[in-house]
């Protein structure tokens, strides 16, 4: 029979091994991508247009395209998501209608990304008449990350202690003054962090942009939000699976993957920096 102490040690060891396993998997993926992709990385690769259908040249337009899409997605989803979260956390009463809203948000989070793509194609590209464009793609991606942003933001709003709320109201603050001065500043770090992580995921999605914005090859950069763009995930998809020379351009595929990865890591790093900044500013 195991004593309590041995059982405890066993549990701790198992949990530790599980954690190591996760780190190992991530580490291997990173290592593999860097090992194969590093050779493709050079200034020309990130700054020039693709040649021979992407078998040579660079991926500059895809980087620019993904950058535009991420920016557009942030611009649309952040205000909407945070606004919705404020409503749900601070104003919405517990009634059937609001339960339905929550249910809808949870369901939205579980919708496969290709369905978002079809939705975007139907609504933004065709019905609204935006055509395949940065606008349609950003709106589609925004719909996809909204649940993540709302859930993360609502949680961090609710985490603000009741004492701060009571104190503000008792000093004669209106509800909105209370939220603006004594809830949002403290929950900002959680809201931004959660949102950026969600957007980071969206940046790497292929399915939603496949039908709404992404082009296989464009000879010039987009001039307006109604133009199509190339995008890193789609470019990678093409290079890896649709390209006639797929077997011979591994370094291009890995290089593209590495850039995409760096972009997402950059976003996460930004999220961490923002969080540290706010944590230092408001600690309790």
């Amino acid at each position: 029979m195991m004593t309590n102490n041995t059982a405890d040690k066993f549990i701790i060891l198992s949990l530790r091994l599980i954690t190591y396993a996760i780190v190992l998997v991530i580490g291997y993926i990173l290592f593999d991508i860097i090992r194969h992709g590093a050779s493709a990385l050079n200034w020309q690769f990130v700054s020039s247009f693709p040649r021979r259908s992407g078998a040579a040249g660079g991926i500059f337009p895809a980087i620019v395209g993904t950058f535009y899409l991420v920016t557009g997605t942030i611009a649309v989803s952040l205000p909407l998501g945070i606004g919705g979260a404020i409503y749900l956390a601070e104003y919405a009463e517990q009634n059937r209608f609001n339960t339905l809203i929550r249910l809808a948000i949870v369901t939205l989070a579980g919708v496969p990304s290709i369905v978002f793509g079809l939705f975007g194609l139907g609504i933004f590209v065709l019905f609204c008449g935006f055509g395949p464009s940065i606008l349609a793609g950003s709106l589609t991606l925004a719909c996809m990350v909204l649940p993540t942003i709302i859930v993360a933001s609502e949680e961090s709003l609710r985490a603000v202690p009741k004492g701060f709320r009571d104190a503000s109201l008792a000093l004669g603050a209106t509800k909105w003054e209370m939220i603006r001065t004594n809830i949002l500043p403290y929950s900002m770090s959680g809201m931004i962090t959660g949102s950026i992580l969600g957007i980071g995921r969206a940046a790497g999605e292929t399915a939603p942009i496949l039908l709404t914005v992404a082009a296989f090859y464009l000879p010039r950069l987009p001039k307006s939000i109604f133009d199509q763009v190339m995008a890193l995930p789609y470019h990678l998809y093409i290079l890896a699976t649709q390209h006639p020379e797929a077997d011979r351009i591994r370094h291009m595929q890995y290089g593209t993957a590495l850039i995409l990865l760096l972009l997402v890591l950059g976003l996460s790093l930004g999220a961490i920096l923002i969080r540290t900044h706010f944590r230092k500013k408001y600690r309790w």
Partner: protein
Amino acid sequence: MVEQSIYPNYPKDLEMVITASQVNFFYGPTQALFDISLLIPAKHVTALIGPSGCGKSTFLRCLNRMNDTIPHSRVEGAISINQKDIYAPGTDVVELRKEVGMVFQKSNPFPKSIFDNVAYGPRIHGEKDQRRLAEIVEQSLQQAAIWDEVKDRLHANAMGLSGGQQQRLCIARALAVGPKILLMDEPASALDPKSTMRIEDLIGELRTNYTIVIVTHNMQQAARVSDYTAFFYEGRLIECDATPKIFTNPRQKQTEDYITGRFG
């Protein structure tokens, strides 16, 4: 003036600032206050005492309408402050809360600087002049007897203060809005004896300018700081009288049982 029939032991010329008549309060289907009628005199300290769950805090929070924030709660009856019904439709809750400040059981300074904590109230009420704000902050911290301890670190985070200092900061923050009435919900119950004493001394100083209503679990504290005491039990007001009278010669058996420690 005082209704002599209810309060035979109050001085005859006592000015009453808060009048509650037949107040009932409900948390959803649960009734928490039954028919509370109570007068609270200006510029004196009134203590609300009673065992946990007796409704004393609920009643206190009715006086600045903090209970409004609780979903499905409902108040009946009338509460007037300076002859104005505070539950009348169209009452400006912001104005009410400027008039009636509150200090909570758990000190709750904002995670901002000491200065910004005290300036919070005046700022949201539109004070922008930096000199005036600095004046208000200094004056409020002086009144709350904490100025000397914090004057050299006004821009340090308030979370770095000790528990007792935090609570006095919260009192300063409440005073900065310029209230006439101060509600205190067990303001010292989370503090060590020395900090408690400082808070009690402070209440003694503030009583000359403010009407203070204090909820306390601690009967010795009620006896030390208050002029009048109201005893609540199971949502009802059992007895209200001059503090020495309550603690030496209460009229009701329940009051006597409670203050002598037979229950509660």
